[in-house]
């Protein structure tokens, strides 16, 4: 004969689970009112139980997920277990990734309430995202090895073969040797670039943000580019509020604006003096929007597509360039949690729009 544990013992077991599990557990009615909440939830939202029970769960969720939760709760009340992922803060906690399960509780043939169990999967999600990014890096690395690294090397092999057949005093000998020298330098440059990029990636987590006065930073960049600007008769106009602060890594910010402005100089239009306008808007609470707009030679955005910020992609056929600058710019901005967009028109100019925290 099967024996069942006394109800009291069961109660103790389930209470212990409810009280001690790291997952957050809520019991809700059809109107989303919290009937019970476990200590993990109370700790997360930083409230005592009496301030939670009797309130709508929506009070603890950002508005953008209210509809999602309403839909899922309704579905659970039809008698189905539902499971979904979401990314949101709860109460005053920072946004996290959650694996949410809603389990209906049946009593006498109808659903009387729904238990919600949510597990914090932020670490796992981040690991997956990192893995995905690293896989992409690896693919990109393969491409770089087979093209950018092997191209000058293959040239060097061909040139050395040629050298052995040329007369040492002939002009061809000298020209071959010059090409050889150039290609070996290029090979070295690619290796140095790789080193730069990998160093940035290593340091990304360590980049400690600070408040940087944008106008001062820009003045410093322009000061260092002044010779090049003078040589081409170019001007940079800065329209940035004097006290505007940008939160980020100072070295990255310097590199971003140095790269954007030296690109503007490099790809200026032949027929007119270069003019660049750097403008910024934003308040201490808001994200800062910064535009860098030039009247340079521009490029065909449609043709360039999503390759603009890719490593070793170039868009100006008659200008030297390694295709590193904009890749670095985007890496830096990404690592500071901002983003960048570009508009460009051939022979009219290029405008970069940066949004920084």
């Amino acid at each position: 004969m099967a024996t069942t544990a006394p109800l009291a013992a069961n109660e103790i077991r389930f209470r212990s689970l409810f009280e001690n599990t790291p997952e957050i557990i809520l019991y809700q009615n059809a109107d989303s009112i919290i009937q019970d909440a476990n200590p993990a939830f109370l700790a997360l939202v930083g409230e005592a139980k009496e301030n939670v029970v009797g309130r709508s769960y929506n009070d603890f969720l950002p508005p953008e997920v209210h509809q999602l939760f309403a839909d899922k709760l309704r579905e659970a009340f039809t008698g189905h277990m539902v499971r979904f992922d979401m990314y949101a803060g709860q109460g005053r906690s920072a946004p996290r990734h959650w694996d949410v399960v809603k389990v209906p509780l049946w009593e006498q043939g109808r659903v009387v309430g729904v238990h919600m169990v949510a597990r914090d999967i932020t670490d796992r999600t981040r690991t997956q995202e990192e893995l995905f990014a690293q896989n992409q890096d690896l693919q990109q690395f393969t491409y770089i090895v087979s093209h950018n690294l092997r191209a000058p090397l293959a040239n060097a092999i061909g040139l050395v073969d040629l050298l052995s057949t040329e007369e040492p005093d002939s002009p061809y000998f000298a020209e071959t040797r010059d090409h050889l020298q150039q290609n070996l330098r290029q090979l070295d440059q690619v290796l140095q670039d790789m080193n730069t990029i990998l160093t940035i990636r290593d340091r990304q987590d360590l980049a400690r943000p600070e408040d940087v006065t944008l106008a001062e930073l820009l003045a410093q960049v322009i000061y260092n580019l002044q010779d090049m600007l003078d040589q081409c008769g170019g001007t940079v106009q800065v329209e940035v509020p004097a006290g505007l602060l940008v939160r980020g890594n100072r070295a990255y910010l310097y590199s971003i604006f140095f790269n954007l402005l030296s690109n503007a100089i490099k790809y200026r239009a032949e027929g007119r003096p270069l003019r660049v306008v750097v403008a910024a808007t934003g308040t201490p609470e808001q994200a800062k929007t910064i535009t860098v707009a030039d009247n340079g030679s521009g490029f065909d955005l449609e043709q360039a597509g999503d390759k603009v910020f890719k490593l070793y992609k170039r868009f100006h056929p008659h200008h030297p360039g390694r295709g590193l600058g904009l890749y670095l710019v985007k890496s830096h901005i990404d690592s500071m949690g901002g983003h960048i967009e570009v508009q460009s028109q051939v022979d009219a100019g290029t405008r970069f729009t940066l949004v920084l925290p």
Partner: protein
Amino acid sequence: MQTLLVDDDPTVIFLVKRLFDYEGLPDALTTFLSPVEALAFLQQQVPAGALPQVILLDLNMPLLNGWEFVEALKPLEEMLRGQCLLYILTSSLAPTDARRAEDNPLVTGLLHKPLGRQQIQAIRARVQGQGVA
């Protein structure tokens, strides 16, 4: 052996030119650093019947890469078939590029850089053997 070389790398242009000199073909090579200009040239020449017997095409180029170049030649496929040998000339060792070359009916083959005299001789033999005009 009228040959068109498309490569944005001046060293490759220099190397191939020199090899053609050594093969006794100093006037057989037309070169383009810009794939866009090379394509415009072909689009004009091919319908007029003045097509090269051999095209050597680099893959990694700005604005128009080698595969995009081949794609842009599609409308001329009928006129090129049997008349012109198109070789991809690349530093890439990626198997995906080799597979793509194999799968594309317009592409005769894939040559790894650096190009050598033996490869030029082999292409020459093939051009003569096929009687490519």
